[in-house]
């Protein structure tokens, strides 16, 4: 109880100090910001619906990028996560897969996209690859943590009959963790859709490309249209992933 209190006070102290450092308590600056906000928001309405056909196409490209990147990353993250699981492989063996996983996760997808723009040129392919690599780093880590949570008695029982590691993955690990694996995959898809909407900022295709253009040319009403479209997409994805979870995941 006393330790909890100590931890909470420490957190509050840290919050206040860091907010102060960041200029949160600078009232003059905040009030200046507020008036800027009013000016800015006047320029953002009403949304310019004239760009809808073109924005719609860009949105489709964004979704394609997110889908392809997520699925591509998923296929690599399953085996990589399996190889990084301490309860199936010796500690010295899992070091390399874990290093790869940590390295890919350290760099955000935006930076990966920049890297791939350099490698494969401007366009959605760079965005897709960037998302895929980040997905591997993120999902593979979650997956090896799920895999390590598999009941060791079940693993022992199946390895005891002389099953191979692949059979272990197929008959124990997959069925025992499929729910968590798929639900994280849906989460990753949602995340990648949000992430892919800004990948265009670095020339990696999709709706982000137009966002960057409209910000630079101060066409805020058009920017509003794009933001509304992304909002609709994100809400749709929320419902879609809830539907997938309800219909396709095992209820236990």
């Amino acid at each position, binding site marked *: 109880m006393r330790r909890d209190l100590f931890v909470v006070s420490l957190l509050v102290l840290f919050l206040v100090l860091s907010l102060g450092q960041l200029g949160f308590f600078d009232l003059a600056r905040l009030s200046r910001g507020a008036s800027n906000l009013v000016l800015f928001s006047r320029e953002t309405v009403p949304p310019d619906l004239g760009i809808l056909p073109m924005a719609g196409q860009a949105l489709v490209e964004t979704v394609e990028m997110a889908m392809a990147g997520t699925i591509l990353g998923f296929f690599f993250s399953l085996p990589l996560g399996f190889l990084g699981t301490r309860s199936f492989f010796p500690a010295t063996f899992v070091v390399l897969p874990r290093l790869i996983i940590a390295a890919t996760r350290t760099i955000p997808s935006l930076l990966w996209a920049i890297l791939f723009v350099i490698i494969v040129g401007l366009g959605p392919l760079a965005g897709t690859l960037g998302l895929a690599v980040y997905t591997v780093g993120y999902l593979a880590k979650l997956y090896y943590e799920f895999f390590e949570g598999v009941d060791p008695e*079940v693993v022992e029982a199946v390895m*005891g009959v*002389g099953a191979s590691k692949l059979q272990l993955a197929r008959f124990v690990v997959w069925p025992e963790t499929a729910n968590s694996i798929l639900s994280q995959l849906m989460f990753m898809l949602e995340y990648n859709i949000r992430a892919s909407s800004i990948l265009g900022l670095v020339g990696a295709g999709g709706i982000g490309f137009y966002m960057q253009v409209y910000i630079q040319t101060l066409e805020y009403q058009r920017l509003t249209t794009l933001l509304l479209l992304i909002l609709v997409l994100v809400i749709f994805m929320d419902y879609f992933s809830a539907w997938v979870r309800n219909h396709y995941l095992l209820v236990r």
Partner: protein
Amino acid sequence: MTKAAGAHPWVVQAEGVWFAYREENWVLRGISLEVPPGAFFTVMGPSGAGKTTLLKVLAGLLRPQRGRVELLGFPTDKGIPAEVRRQVGYIPQQLGLVRSLTALENVLMGCLGRQRGPGTLMGLFPKEEVERAQECLSLLGIAHKAGERVYRLSGGERQRVAIARTLLQNPPIIFADEFVSDLDFLRAAEIITAMRDIAHQKGISFVFNMHELPLVQEFGDYILLFKDGNILHQGTAKELTWPLVQEALR
């Protein structure tokens, strides 16, 4: 029975076995025992006596610090080879079943050691293995539950699925850890009867631990009374006297 078991007078032999999870904190203190082929061998003792540890050491899952264990004629001190491992059935306390798979799929896992081709990875098992798996379920009276997922089965049914999986593995020896302790008396007696019949019919040795005295007296061919890592009594069920049991449980 397999060649390895047939060639030796004992399926398991332990000589002066000492075991500790942490240094000098001995759980087993100089245990010596022999399990003859086809025996129904019961380890009995109070909770915390080290029964599970003894079973794991005998099954080659743990290596003793001192002494020697021979399993199907192979010393376990350097770890047992995979082909011997496949001949040892082990039913853990929580059974080790995959809850989201069906009873039949769980039983089929018993044949993974000899069916390592790519077909099994796609869920395709040879017809004769599927038939044998169904036979094992029939033998234990739950053939009608073959298609049911394990999380829908009762405790007793799960126990039977775990036994059926081990029977499909077809080992000359099966270790079962406390595996009837979650069942009521009648269910436990029913399952042990089924196991004893199978053991005698197929010449399989069963080594298992439990603490229900009436069951032990009724079913154990050989009984090991065990307390604080020491053997108090080793012999047939008839030789087990009330004062001995009292001393073990005190």
